[in-house]
């Protein structure tokens, strides 16, 4: 059986609605946070989990990490049922919730780590070695003596990640780990995750809204929407279906140059530039370039696929999310 096995997972939440006029009690409404979600994950996989806000991503992570009890379905992680054999299960996993903190606010980061050492019963030597390794990889050396409240968001996220990895978890859940980080911190974090994954074979499940995270890290992507699994496969396959539009920006030497273009490739003037969107499937790129060249002397020309966030937005729209 695979390392993580999820079958027909279900979770419902009860939401109380606003009290209607004249009614004494508020009405309750059932919300299906997860319905019939099934998947399997093998050891050492680096898997991205995407979906619009409220799709059920975090709920899945909370169930897999043993915090929530589902309303139906089977889940085993390394042979254990997370919410039933909670203590044995959580000893082997690490979790980072991007919007919450596990470290103590008013004490130096190092002291929070020392507490984690005792919580996970990490032997002294192993702890020292692991802490050294992690602080080097995450560039935390100078921050260990600093109270958490003085760290910047990026520094804090690195410190949180270190805390979640001290006990060498074989499975790591990351819930929006790059939220609010600057470019340098994001890149550093991604590099680190790749390193941890290849070095120790740590299985990583990542939920994010930042598609660059997925592009940089994940060989496999799952899309969740309205509590259902909509896609499971490689990022390339996912985007292949939606990556159908190219944008050409062209600038001519002559001010009045205007190429002859077919109807399905409309051109729009943007200052000195001419912006054309077309679909390579309907109209070959080579032919497009030839036409553009025929209309005058080209000073500058760029052909771009669409922004990946756009693609994802289109995909969500088509899936009616």
């Amino acid at each position: 059986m695979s390392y993580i096995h999820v079958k027909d997972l279900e979770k419902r939440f009860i939401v109380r609605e606003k009290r209607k006029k004249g009614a004494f009690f508020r009405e309750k409404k059932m919300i299906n946070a997860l319905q019939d979600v099934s998947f399997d994950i093998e050891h050492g996989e680096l898997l991205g989990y995407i979906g619009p806000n409220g799709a059920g991503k975090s709920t899945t992570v909370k169930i897999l990490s043993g915090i929530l009890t589902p309303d139906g379905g089977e889940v085993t992680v390394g042979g254990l049922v997370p919410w039933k054999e909670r203590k044995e299960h959580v000893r082997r996993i690490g979790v980072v919730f991007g919007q919450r903190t596990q470290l103590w606010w008013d004490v130096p980061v190092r002291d929070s780590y020392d507490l984690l050492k005792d919580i996970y019963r990490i032997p002294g030597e192993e702890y020292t070695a692991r802490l050294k390794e992690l602080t080097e990889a995450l560039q935390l050396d100078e921050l260990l003596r600093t109270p958490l409240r003085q760290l910047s968001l990026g520094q804090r996220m690195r410190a949180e990640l270190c805390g979640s990895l001290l006990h060498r978890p074989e499975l790591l859940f990351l819930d929006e780990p790059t939220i609010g980080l600057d470019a340098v911190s994001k890149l550093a974090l991604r590099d680190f995750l790749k390193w941890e994954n290849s070095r120790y074979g740590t299985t990583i499940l990542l939920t994010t809204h930042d598609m660059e995270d997925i592009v940089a890290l994940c060989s496999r992507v799952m899309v969740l929407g309205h509590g259902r699994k909509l896609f499971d496969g490689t990022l390339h396959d996912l985007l292949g279906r939606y990556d159908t539009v190219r944008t050409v920006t062209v600038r001519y030497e002559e001010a009045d140059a205007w190429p002859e273009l077919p109807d399905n490739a409309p051109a729009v003037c943007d200052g000195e530039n001419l912006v054309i969107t077309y679909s390579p499937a309907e109209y070959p790129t080579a032919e497009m370039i030839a036409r553009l060249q025929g209309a005058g002397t080209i000073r500058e020309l760029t052909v771009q696929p669409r922004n990946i966030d756009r693609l994802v937005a289109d995909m969500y729209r088509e899936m009616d999310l």
Partner: protein
Amino acid sequence: MKAYLSAFRMRRRLEVQYRGAVLGGIICQMFFGLVLIAVYKALYAGKPQSMPFSHIASYVWLQQAFFRMLLASDPDLLDKIRTGSIAYDLCRPLNLYGFYYVRIVAQKLTGSLMRGVPMLVFALILPEGWGLSMPASPAGLCLGLAGLMLGLLCVSALENITMGFTMRTLDSRGMQGLLNLLMMTFSGNILPLTLFPDSWQHVITLLPYAQLLDTPIRLYTGEALPAEAPRMLLIQLCWTLLLTALGILFWQRNQRRIEIQGG
């Protein structure tokens, strides 16, 4: 076990950090102590007394010195529950009730010792009739201390039940306001329980709130003789065990139905 001890030490350290709060607490409690004693003095002037006035003054000082033990919820824990950071604690290989319990004990113990010890020293040097009297007997002091320890465990168990309610409502203020009212009235903080009518005292002293400070203070002042101590300590112990058991059950139920809201 080591994890719980570490959590205890960590919380104790945190409490020591807030020195300004300690000073503020001392001044505030000193003020209340003096005002309360002045009020009782005015009320009792020239009237027959059911108990020696020095006992009342001692009662007031001891109540004020250990005020922090009664009315102080750990803001970190409440924040964790409100913001959902409790999610992290839920995925630790620990008993969550115990993990929070040791933190509550650490906060209450450290907080009240830091405030209480300087206050009691001050109260000891106050003039006769205003200050704290010496314990009735060495045995009374020892039994009082034992009662204080049990009271600490008992109040922490109570506090953890309030935490359990907070896990359900996410905001501590409603339930806490209600429980604090009971706490202030029936712990003897506003009016010493020894001053309630005798018929009331039979009932009030059996309530959990009387186990927190009233019992150890009575043993200290000699209002209760050492011979009565076994019975009183036994009641304390029973309440501590009962409240702890209730808390553990409550938390287990909560953990099964908890929802961590938000992303």
